[in-house]
């Protein structure tokens, strides 16, 4: 057993931390307040090959591994949960699908520009009536000559309003239930595709969460991913990987709030003593620290399993369940440590608390993770 990061992973951590502190942290509060998507930082991340970390160099990637990618999401999320999820949704849910399930031609055409960060990716599965019950897809696709025609809509799509390339799921055969779902690559320029409503959210406010509308949207036949009817399996496998990214985002948010709380505790004095001298708060800090460390072990292990080619579905579910709940708990306690100041926008912990909540919901709620874990134990 080896608990040490590789030298490469240590460097990735160092590089992304410097990048996050210099480029991301200074704008985090502003983009949260104005709901401005930080496109300038996505461009910078592309320049440093951060948008395709786990993909091979010949496919436009950085030639790294999943643990390095997870570390990058974690470091970004320490200062800005929004930037963390932009990278996670792009890498795991869009580029990752083309990498794992795409044909050589699809990889050439779509993965290379995604992994280089020339194009931004998104993933469209959720519908108004198909959330956790993803099988209830109402968006349809039928073949007409050399193309498919898609009709319907998707909601809550991360990066939705700004992405170039979308992985979209639609029913090609309604009679077959989950076996009637297929996956497609859709470009934002395709005829019949448009962006609908942008969500006004509690947290990760600068990430563009959009509705996607398909009105007789024309998609070339060669943009079908895998075979017809295999879409549900592709979605579930993709979400297994995506969950590691969200778990890393949750871990980063927790660590970011923890760091802020520790700094504040040594600066802030009450009763002529720094807050750090009060045992009640020391115990709170110890509990936060242990939970963060435990979350980190689960998140890194899930990424490690993926890198080793081992199964990682349950590992990802555990990591996401635990890390997201730790994020919520730690950020809430961080606000408590800051007292009244923590409730204001003068300090970043209230933003972190708002950002943390979504990690218990998207890419499978905590309850879904428990279903996955329980099913593996009680089989």
């Amino acid at each position, binding site marked *: 057993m080896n608990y040490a990061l590789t030298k490469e992973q240590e460097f*990735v951590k160092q590089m992304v931390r410097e990048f996050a502190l210099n480029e991301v942290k200074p704008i985090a509060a502003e983009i949260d307040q104005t709901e401005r998507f930080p496109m300038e930082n996505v461009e910078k991340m592309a320049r440093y090959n*951060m948008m395709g970390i786990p993909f091979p160099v010949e496919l436009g990637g950085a030639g790294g591994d999943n643990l390095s990618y997870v570390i990058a999401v974690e470091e970004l999320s320490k200062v800005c949960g929004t930037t963390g999820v932009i990278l996670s949704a792009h890498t795991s849910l869009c580029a990752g699908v083309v990498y794992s399930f795409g044909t050589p031609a699809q990889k050439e055409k779509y993965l290379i520009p995604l992994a280089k960060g020339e194009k931004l990716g998104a993933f469209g599965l959720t519908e108004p009536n198909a959330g956790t019950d993803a099988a209830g897809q109402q968006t349809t696709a039928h073949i007409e000559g050399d193309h498919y025609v898609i009709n319907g809509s998707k909601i809550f799509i991360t990066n939705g309003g700004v992405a170039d390339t979308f992985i979209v799921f639609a029913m090609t055969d309604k009679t077959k239930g989950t076996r009637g779902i297929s996956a497609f690559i859709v470009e934002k320029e395709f005829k019949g595709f448009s962006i609908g409503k942008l969500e006004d959210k509690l947290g990760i406010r600068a990430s563009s969460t959009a509705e996607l509308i398909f009105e007789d949207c024309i998609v070339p036949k060669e943009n079908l991913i895998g075979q017809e009817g295999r879409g549900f399996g592709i979605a579930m496998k993709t979400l297994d990987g995506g969950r590691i990214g969200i778990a890393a985002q949750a871990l980063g948010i927790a660590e970011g709030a923890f760091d802020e709380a520790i700094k504040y505790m040594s600066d802030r004095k009450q009763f002529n003593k720094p807050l750090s001298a009060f045992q009640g708060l020391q115990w709170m800090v110890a509990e936060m620290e242990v939970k963060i460390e435990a979350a980190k072990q689960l998140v890194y292990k899930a990424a490690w399993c993926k890198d080793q080619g081992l199964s990682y579905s349950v590992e990802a579910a555990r990591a996401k369940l635990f890390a997201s709940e730790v994020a919520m708990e730690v950020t809430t306690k961080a606000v408590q440590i800051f007292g009244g100041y923590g409730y204001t926008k003068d300090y970043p912990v209230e933003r972190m608390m708002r950002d943390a909540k979504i990690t218990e919901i998207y890419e499978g709620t905590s309850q879904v993770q428990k279903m996955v874990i329980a099913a593996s134990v009680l089989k």
Partner: protein
Amino acid sequence: MNIVVCIKQVPDTNEVKIDPKTNTLIREGVPSIINPDDKSALEEALVLKDSIGAHITVISMGPPQAEKVLREALSMGADEAILITDRAFAGADTLATSNALAGAIRKLDYDIIFAGRQAIDGDTAQVGPEIAEHLDIPQVTYVEKVELMGNELKVRRALEDGYEVITVKTPVLLTAIKELNVPRYMNIKNIYTAFQKEVKIWTANDIDVDKALLGLAGSPTKVRKSATKEAKGLGELINKPAKEAAEYAAHKLKELHII
């Protein structure tokens, strides 16, 4: 174009904390970084590489751990790295260090040698200029702008209250200040290739320098004594109009028989 960049591994002084009991630096756990001025020197070499193409060799003299900053330089985009390391270099002052580095650089092809102005742990600003002297090439120090014009460089040199614009022919040694540029981060793709490359290790036997000029033997500088500055008390803040404050201060000084 061949460029050599001299870099030094230094403790990150932003991370250095003072032990409140002993008033000494806590060195444990302090990360080692590329000296900031050296990073600007490397960045300028990378800018030239981006614009006209160049082969960049980074070179450092230091203990074996200094390999880390060389790998970092490779991750930023340098092509080749050499670590000059040997017990024979121990105790080197700036003169002995520059002799070792110049001896190594003599074995390389170079048009431009970049160095940082000075290191944050020593603040001497001597090694760069000394290397130029040993190699008998021109040098421009405190460089804040570099423009390539054919075979010549137009270089802006910062002065305390202005600047000089100097045109120099290569080969030349330039020492960089932080105003020269904003260094890039490591590139994630380069990180993976940086660890596949070899960091060449050169010892005193690999460079053509008289051993009497190296290490402690080659160092005219001797540290006779070092001391820690004693911490003073908090003092007293006088918050009165200027005249009253002056009177009060004079009174206090008299009380202590200082005036």
